[in-house]
């Protein structure tokens, strides 16, 4: 049944204010789906942030580290063993720990995540790596993640900030981001970190394979060469593992999935209400058309056309409001929440589906249009 979009659109345009309200009504479902999907994806992206940010072909971690928020560290010797495997160009150690950063304004100490690594081999995909590398070579300093939550206070480059009671200089900023568990990050050079904690162990090693070498073959060689206390994953596998772990353990995943489903049902019901009113108001016109010899099938195509128009109008309106809502939520939560192309396509398809479903339910009403009732 191909929808009569042109006639459906003209009928809807007859009362523009009403069309606007109808679009807003459908848009409400769209906004809910967008926001709930955005919250879910934002939470999952944030939890897998480091896996998506690291530069390396493979990651070596302690076998017990089943998610990225565990603190099981790896012996440095394992990274050296991995570096000796044929096909491995180099292995970059990445240290991670939590330290106390004293907010210069309220003097309260808050826990922040510290990453340390060799300044010449930056393990993250960050803007302006040369400047970061240069800044980290200056001892007794650190780089602050400007996307950290505001609880740490505000400070400028050159300020001395207490990290675990030791004053260290802010040498610049990077953009990484917080997640559900961690409120912010700072970066430090491996040398500075080991000078403070000489026995510190890396949290992971980033394996860079030689050009032309097969990543999978190198992985298998590393696994064969090292004792079974390590796991070797690609960054993509690590991110996926993190996503699955978060979905399995956090009840909010279920909550947002239910929220999305609720948005779809609400959108369908709203669209049904709008179409029902449309049909009721145009019942006389539909009856006239029937009196002129048009079939019920033709009338149904008009309703489906209206449903299609409403889905496009509702989606467009919803997209704008969802974008605004996501921006607000991202600002409040400091999580990477936003409307992306993938979520746009998913929600767009869902919108058409929900409006068509509503159209199919409302269509029964048009069958009662009775030409005799005109007189």
């Amino acid at each position, binding site marked *: 049944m191909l929808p009569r979009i042109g006639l459906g659109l003209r009928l809807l345009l007859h009362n523009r204010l009403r069309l606007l309200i109808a679009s807003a*009504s459908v848009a*409400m479902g769209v*906004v*809910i789906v967008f*926001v*709930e999907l955005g*919250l879910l994806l934002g*939470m999952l992206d*944030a939890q897998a942030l480091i896996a998506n940010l690291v530069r390396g072909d493979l990651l070596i971690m302690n076998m*017990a580290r089943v998610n990225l928020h*565990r603190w*099981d560290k790896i012996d440095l010797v394992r990274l050296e063993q991995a570096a000796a495997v044929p096909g491995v160009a180099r292995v970059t150690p990445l240290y991670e720990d939590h330290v*106390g950063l004293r907010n210069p304004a309220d*003097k*309260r*100490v*808050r*826990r922040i995540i510290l990453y340390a690594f060799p300044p010449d081999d930056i393990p993250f995909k960050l803007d302006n790596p040369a400047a970061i590398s240069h800044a980290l070579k200056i001892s007794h300093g650190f780089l602050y993640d400007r996307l950290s*939550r505001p*609880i740490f206070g505000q400070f400028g480059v050159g300020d001395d900030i207490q990290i675990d009671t030791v004053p260290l200089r802010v040498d610049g900023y990077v953009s990484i981001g*917080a997640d*559900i568990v961690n*409120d912010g990050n700072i970066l430090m050079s491996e040398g500075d970190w080991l000078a403070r904690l000489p026995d510190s162990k890396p949290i992971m090693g980033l394996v860079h394979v030689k050009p032309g070498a097969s990543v999978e073959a190198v992985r298998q060689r590393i696994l064969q060469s090292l004792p079974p206390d390590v796991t070797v994953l690609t960054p993509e596998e690590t991110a996926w593992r993190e996503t699955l772990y978060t979905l399995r*353990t956090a*009840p*909010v995943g*279920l*909550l*947002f999935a*239910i*929220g999305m489903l*609720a948005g779809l*049902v*609400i959108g369908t*019901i*709203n669209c*049904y*209400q709008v179409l*029902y*009113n449309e049909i*009721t108001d145009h019942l006389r016109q539909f009856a006239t058309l029937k009196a002129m010899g048009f079939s019920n099938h033709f009338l149904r195509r008009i309703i489906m056309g209206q449903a299609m128009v409403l889905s496009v109008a509702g989606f467009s309106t919803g997209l704008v409001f969802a974008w605004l*809502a996501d921006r607000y*939520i991202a600002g*409040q*939560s*400091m*999580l990477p929440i936003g409307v992306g192309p993938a979520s746009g396509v998913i929600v767009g398809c869902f919108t058409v589906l929900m409006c068509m479903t509503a159209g199919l*339910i409302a269509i*029964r009403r048009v069958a009662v249009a009775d030409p005799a009732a005109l007189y």
Partner: protein
Amino acid sequence: MPEGFATDSPRKRRAELSSAFGMLPGATCIIIAGANLLQHRLRLVAALAGVAVALFLLTLQISVLDAAKAKVTQLYDDFNFDLAAVPDTYQFLLNFETIDRVVLDQGRATGDISRAFGLNVDVVHWMQWPSKKLAYLFLIGLDDPGSFVRDPVISKGVTSLLSSNSLLMDAYSEPDIGPLDIGTRAKIGDEFETIAGHFKLGLFFYGEGSAIVRNTDFPRLTDRDSSKVSIALFQLRPGVSAQKAKRDLEAIVPEHTLVFTRDELLQQERDYFLSVRPVGIMIYISMLIACLVGTVIIVQVLSTEVANRMKEYAVLKAMGSSPAFVYGIGVTQSVLVGLGGLLPALMIGGVVLWYIQYRTHLETAVGFVLLGKMLAITFAASVCAAAAVLGRVQRADPAALY
């Protein structure tokens, strides 16, 4: 219609109309509102479904938020205390920094405090034996419970920990912790520990499981200095104000020590998890949206209803019904749609919340408090929706009927 009807008082006219139906005015409103709604049953079902979905969403979010609020302070709720001293690095319960135990004695020396209690917390590796599988264990160290521990199971359990290598295990620990049966042995560091009893907390924020040991054993299992404590708790002498005791204690505790009253500490804990951490913010926003959607759906249903029934309202006016009676029908319709949606919302919500509680041990099950909140929200949303729409009824003109 009796002569002179239009000049009678509204109350008299309403009474006359009601007597025509043979019942009270309120009951008449309900009958008419119900009949109005039932005329288009499919549309009513759709409206109820829309409201139900919005209220279902709201029920879930309010319940999870309330449960999370309760969960983040659950351990503190199990203690009787009026003041707490913590290191100035304190952000929430799981704090790795410590204060000197001397603070406990300093508290007693102020004269405001009757009893002091040391609470230790840390995260250790729990190594199942003989599989050697590792999991994180949130380890809680307690002084002699005395009158501090509220939960009789914990109080009795700690008193019964006779061996220095025995502990109480949280029965709500995650499966990753392994077997939880009494007598199960596992390693913390280099020492074998035996599960001697259970308690029920479900502190999944901090580790895959949690366990309680005596403070005499805690330093050995965590490599902590036995002269340190994570949190010092104090009970005040009768009649002493918490603020005065706080000021007195602040004056003598060492530098880098913070003192909170019970309410301040619990509030800070909630604020951190629900205002700083994003989950609380996300749930608050979802709640707001669900509330808005529920109201808008009722507005939409009611708006259509009013638009479609302007003639009938005009007839009622022509018959002399007072505006209050006519509005009463609208408000009743609105409340009926709201309550009609609430019932399935609570039924489905109850099942889903039971499942969440079963999976996470968050106290999400539907209780009287949640029921009361949902009724209040539904009623408020229905009345707001009615207020937004019913102004149009005033335009119903008997003259337009002809």
